[in-house]
């Protein structure tokens, strides 16, 4: 009776330890994987591979990111107006829309959309390559799959998410302008001048870009690693795709808090 209880306790602790070891192992594999692929900066033939991935990861994500940016800017202006009008401060609308987009919404929402639109596709693509043993075949004929397959995708992700974030901010501010100035009748001059006097280029635009670079790194890393490290079955691919979206969304939101506390917490 008593010995059965102790055995169960020991087993459950051992199970916990086993899972902990696996997490640390996976982190180590991911780091080694990242270090070995990132050094493959595209050059020569790699530039063309990188361009193809830029097209798939960046250009084709443009539509969803820009449309979401437009609607988020419009909603921000509409909500902000109904709150600010109570204080007679609707002139501060431009400031509110631009600061919340530049500091927070554009980096985060663009990264979440990017994880859903491009990250999951990267995982599925690399996962299917692994399941159909294309990666192993590459190694057999002496081509490093990390350089040939993974590095162009990583670099395409690093470059395109910050660009998408800029597009998101610009379109969002334009959406806020459309709703605030053209529809609700906030004065155009105060909309832009309040915005310009409160937005600092390096503190707001620059920090937003740093956030977006960090998110690009994390989301692409998770997507590509999940694809490379999955169990090569159809079920494994579907699990890994789901994990990519879940892990990268959580990582983006968690890191966003840490980065915000570091950048703006001292105010």
């Amino acid at each position, binding site marked *: 009776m008593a010995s059965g209880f102790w055995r169960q306790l020991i087993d459950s602790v051992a199970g916990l330890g086993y899972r902990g070891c696996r997490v640390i192992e996976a982190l180590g594999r991911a780091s080694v994987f990242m270090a070995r692929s990132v050094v493959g900066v595209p050059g020569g033939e790699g530039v063309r591979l990188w*361009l193809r991935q830029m097209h798939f990861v960046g*250009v084709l994500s443009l539509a969803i990111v820009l449309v979401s940016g437009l609607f988020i800017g419009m909603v921000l202006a509409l909500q902000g107006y109904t709150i600010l009008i109570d204080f007679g401060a609707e002139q501060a609308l431009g400031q509110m829309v631009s600061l919340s987009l530049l500091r927070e919404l554009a980096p985060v929402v663009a990264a979440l959309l990017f994880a859903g639109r491009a990250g999951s596709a990267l995982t599925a693509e690399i996962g299917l390559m692994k399941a159909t043993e294309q990666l192993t075949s590459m190694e057999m004929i002496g081509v490093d799959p990390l350089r040939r397959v993974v590095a162009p995708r990583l670099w395409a992700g690093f470059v*395109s998410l910050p660009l998408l974030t800029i597009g998101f901010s610009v379109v969002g501010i334009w959406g806020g302008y459309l709703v605030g100035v053209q529809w609700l009748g906030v004065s155009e001059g105060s909309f832009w001048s309040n915005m310009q006097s409160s*937005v600092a*280029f390096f503190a707001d635009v620059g920090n937003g870009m740093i956030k977006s670079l960090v998110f690009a790194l994390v989301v692409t890393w998770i997507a590509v690693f999940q694809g490379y490290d999955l169990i090569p079955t159809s079920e494994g691919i579907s699990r890994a795709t789901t994990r990519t979206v879940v892990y990268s969304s959580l990582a983006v939101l968690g890191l966003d808090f840490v980065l915000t506390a570091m950048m703006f917490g001292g105010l």
Partner: protein
Amino acid sequence: MQRSKTVEFGVGIFILAGILGLVFLGLRVSGLTPSASSQTFHLEASFSDIGSLKPRARVTMAGVTVGRVESIELDQEWFDARVSMRLDSSLEGELSRDSTAAILTAGLLGEQYIGLTVGGDPEALEDGDSIRDTQSALVLEELIQQFVSSMVKD
């Protein structure tokens, strides 16, 4: 792998649009002016209380923005706030030596800014001079305190 002009063109447009967007964010949204530093001159003023004046606040004359606050620091000798401002260079040599600087508030809850008023002295302020005659920010608590103490006397 064959080259695909449409893909390369698309990526090129994408990167270009990103750079243009950044320029838009710089110029239109954060109000950076490319040649701001070359055409300004420098003035200083000491205030006994700056309220919540911040660097980059506006400096105005008759309501027109003519410059920005560059830095604010505590004077260790007199324990007042030294505010240094950058003004439009077209005003250099035009402001008289007895001009006054006051810290004003835009609206009831708005941001604070510096308002300059010209005096009548024929001598003019030059680059690096300081404005002697200053008026501190209106602090609401002090105002209420004065009001209450004058009520008690009556």
